[in-house]
């Protein structure tokens, strides 16, 4: 059994991956802070429970080839991607908001990394090599 199969470690791994992807999304938003028509996006929080069905109410699909609403934007959170203001050029990036998210993402990542390190230490203690 690999270390990453342990539930706690696997959860932390998911969390670290999520922060990594979010950081990239934030970089995309920051780079396009002056691009006309650019709308910021936001990731959905990582859920540990297995994904349940889509929203209770959804648009009826008359053809199997139609895209379902849930499949159109998986992993994106429309609510969290707040629009503080939209400039006349159609750009909706708020740099202050973005910077806040970046530092928040960074400290959350560090928290998860510390927890990961601690759980590795705990394992080491369990096999008798701890301090």
């Amino acid at each position, binding site marked *: 059994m690999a270390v990453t199969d342990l539930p706690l470690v696997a959860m932390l791994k998911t969390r670290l991956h999520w922060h990594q992807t979010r950081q*990239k999304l934030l970089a995309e938003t920051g780079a396009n802070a*002056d691009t006309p028509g650019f709308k910021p996006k936001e990731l959905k929080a990582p859920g540990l429970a297995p994904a349940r069905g889509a929203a209770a109410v959804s648009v009826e699909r008359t053809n199997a080839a139609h895209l379902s609403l849930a499949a159109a934007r998986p992993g994106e959170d429309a609510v969290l991607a707040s629009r503080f203001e939209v400039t006349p050029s159609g750009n909706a990036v708020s740099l202050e908001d973005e910077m806040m998210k*970046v530092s928040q993402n960074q400290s959350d990542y560090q928290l998860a990394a510390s927890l990961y390190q601690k759980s590795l230490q705990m394992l080491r203690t369990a096999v008798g090599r701890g301090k």
Partner: protein
Amino acid sequence: MDFLKTISVAASGLKVQSRRRRLIAGNIANADSTAEKPGVDPYRRKIPTFGRRFDRELEAQVVELGRVKPDPTAFRTKYEPGHPAADAQGEVKLPNVNPVIETMDMREAQRSYEANLNLITATRRMITRTLEILRV
């Protein structure tokens, strides 16, 4: 590694903003560049445009500088009959550069540049933290 891609995306922002600053500096430097003879247009203000492009390698939308467009607004004129570029009425055409607008544009570019720089710093810190896991 995703973090290195993050830095590349932010770097595209840095590149565009610094080129924008260069254009603005050119506008400010030429704020008084008149023509040398009458009938010729003086310096025309340049406007940078931004576009986004999906980079397949980085799997993200990077920003890039689009075509640099000339500002179509009218030139300022000044009554100065002795000037070599003065027309029959003694009016000299001056560039359509407004230093106040340029200064504000410069400040905006600087702010965006700093935001991208901040992102790179944050990402680098995250990479360092990841490497620290090895150093128990």
